């Protein structure tokens, strides 16, 4: 008999030994004369259980994890005899952490073989594109508008509006750019999708191309993600071979092709105009807006720029789901948000859920508190430019407006947990230092302000005229916020000021009592 076993190729799983476990499994199976069908999908996102091995049974996939090489022989024995095993987790789909999610974007991640376009199609892939090919440009864009989809990269701009602008920007060369420069610490959803379900990213970009009349797409992937680069390149080649990319897609009149471009370690290139400069082969300095990229983007041509998660939401919406998508969520935040739990957290991973879940539910219930077992003290939401929230704000629901109302941001949905050993003055200093390292240098508030900011925090930490230096720091933050050309300098004050507001004792100030808002 042949048994079908899944061991992720996702780099989060590779980082904790998935390849070694897979190799050992092949070796042991061979030794025991067991015929093995080994599939290497993406990750389900339950990273504390990685490497998680799944076996196909009549009832569904059964999971074991976290596995090591030493566990392989006994796991294989348990599989063959249908016996028990200490690492056996039961049916994967019934694991409560996974069951609580609403997976629209990550519906196939960890399930399909990312190298197989047939597997993608067998799991509902390319239905969105097939429908899009029958619709007019306007009808596609109407669907995206109706779904309420907002950019998942962080800024939350309505996607349909952006597409419409590009569609109406006359004729001639237009571009689709997928921003896969996921540089924020605490975020890895783009990486997981590119590694685990790359055809969905391709399908989303292709639909965008058809909608706005662009025939060329670029996906700009950061160099820190070599596995994602490899997976996307392999998927693009497969899509070309099968007629899903190239001239006359699926025998239609539409043509579209995609090229992968790799960044070179500059965080600022995640900013859309810097990304365009980088794609054009220049230093990744920010462009002043206007003109908007929708009017004058890559090589001066009208360009749709969306993030990986945004493009990936599109196939579901087109496959008859605009209303279904819009029915999820709260307020003006529609659909689901893939939230990434990382840092010092017991159960870290990818949790996709409708907007509206509170921060406390996420950290305490889903994340299970800290990995160190110490109390949670601070949580940074939205990457290096996101706010640090204390426990008193754990009632904040995931919603763009609710976070903004408390001087924070949802951003790309990264949540980094810190225990009570964290020094918030040091974190504030790091925020300034990071901005100084990563500033493109084009505007003075960001370039100089961040360096002066780090120095000022140093003085506060050293106890050198703290009151006066805090006034300087606040003034500096204000200058950066209003004077910077882009969000790097503009948002760097958020982590700094939130640390100062919510954790003043770490700066040598008396603690303030914070009201847990309504």
């Amino acid at each position, binding site marked *: 008999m042949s048994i079908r076993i899944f061991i992720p190729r996702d*780099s989060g799983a590779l980082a904790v030994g998935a390849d070694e476990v897979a190799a050992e499994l092949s070796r042991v199976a061979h030794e025991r004369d067991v015929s093995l069908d080994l599939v290497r999908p993406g990750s389900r996102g339950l990273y504390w259980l990685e490497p998680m091995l799944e076996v196909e049974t009549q009832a569904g996939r059964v999971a074991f994890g976290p596995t090591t090489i030493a566990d392989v022989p006994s796991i294989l024995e348990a599989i063959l005899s249908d016996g028990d095993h200490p690492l056996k987790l039961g049916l994967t789909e019934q694991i409560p952490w996974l069951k609580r999610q609403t997976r629209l974007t990550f519906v196939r991640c960890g399930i399909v073989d990312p190298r197989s376009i047939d597997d993608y199609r067998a799991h509902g892939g390319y239905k969105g594109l097939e429908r899009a090919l029958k619709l007019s440009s306007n009808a596609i864009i109407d669907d995206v508008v109706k779904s309420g989809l907002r950019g998942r990269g962080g800024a939350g701009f309505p996607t349909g509006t952006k597409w419409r602008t590009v569609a109406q920007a006359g004729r001639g060369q237009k571009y689709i750019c997928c921003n896969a420069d996921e540089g924020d610490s605490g975020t890895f959803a*783009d990486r997981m999708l590119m590694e685990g379900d790359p055809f969905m990213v391709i399908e989303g970009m292709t639909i965008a191309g058809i909608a706005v009349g662009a025939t060329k797409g670029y996906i700009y992937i950061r160099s820190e993600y070599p596995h994602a680069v490899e997976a996307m390149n392999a998927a693009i080649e497969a899509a070309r071979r099968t007629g899903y990319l190239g001239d006359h897609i699926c025998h239609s009149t539409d043509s579209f092709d995609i090229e992968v471009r790799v960044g070179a370690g500059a965080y600022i290139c995640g900013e859309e105009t810097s990304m365009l400069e980088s794609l054009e082969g220049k230093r990744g300095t920010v462009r002043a807006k206007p003109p908007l990229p929708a009017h004058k983007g890559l090589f001066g041509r009208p360009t749709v720029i969306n993030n990986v998660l945004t493009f990936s939401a599109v196939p579901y919406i087109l496959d008859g789901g605009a209303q279904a998508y819009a029915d999820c969520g709260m307020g003006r935040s529609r659909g689901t948000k893939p939230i990434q739990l990382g840092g010092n957290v017991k159960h870290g991973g990818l949790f996709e859920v409708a907007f509206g879940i509170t921060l406390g539910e996420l950290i305490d219930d889903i994340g299970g508190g800290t990995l160190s077992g110490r109390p949670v003290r601070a949580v940074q939401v939205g990457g290096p430019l996101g706010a640090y929230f204390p426990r008193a704000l754990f009632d904040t629901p995931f919603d763009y407006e609710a976070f903004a109302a408390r001087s924070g941001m949802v951003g790309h949905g990264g949540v980094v947990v810190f225990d009570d050993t964290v020094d918030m003055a040091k974190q504030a200093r790091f925020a300034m230092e990071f901005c100084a390292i990563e500033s493109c240098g084009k505007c003075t508030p960001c370039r100089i302000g961040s360096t002066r900011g780090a120095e000022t925090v140093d003085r506060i930490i050293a106890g050198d005229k703290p009151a006066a230096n805090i006034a300087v720091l606040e003034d500096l933050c204000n200058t950066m916020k209003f004077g910077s050309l882009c969000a790097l300098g503009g948002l760097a004050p958020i982590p700094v000021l939130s640390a100062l507001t919510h954790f003043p004792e770490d700066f040598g100030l008396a603690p303030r009592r914070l009201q847990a808002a309504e």
Partner: protein
Amino acid sequence: MHNETWDPTRAAEIIAGLTHKEGPTLVILHALQEAFGYVPAAAEPMVAQALNLSRAEIHGVLTFYPDFRREPPGRHVLKLCRAEACQAAGGDALAARIENRLGVGFGATTADGAVTLEPIYCLGLCATAPAAMLDDRVIGRLDASRLDALMAEAQR
């Protein structure tokens, strides 16, 4: 990591194979570094000429991006994530340990040419932090003993 030794003819070949792309500068610089392990000063005027740009423009691009090296790296490149999620999981202590053991700071190569130590800001392994990358291999859930094993491997 096995790099070719610098050879202008080979470099010219690499450049010529990529000039047809739209905005090819980064693509070419990546390809040169992939081949030689770094982008030598001698390559700058070659790229500039092929793309009809000034040497200053190419130099500006080369020095803007942290990935591009202008000197050959050590036999192994060890990158440790220094960003927030890894800080939260004890990354700073590992960074101090690594500098101490290798006797070099971030951005430098050990005297014996074995290891180049570089900071990296997020490998997307935040749920299995702290994380590092040795050459092309990713490593998560680092602690002192796993890090020591990694350094020993890199120094071989």
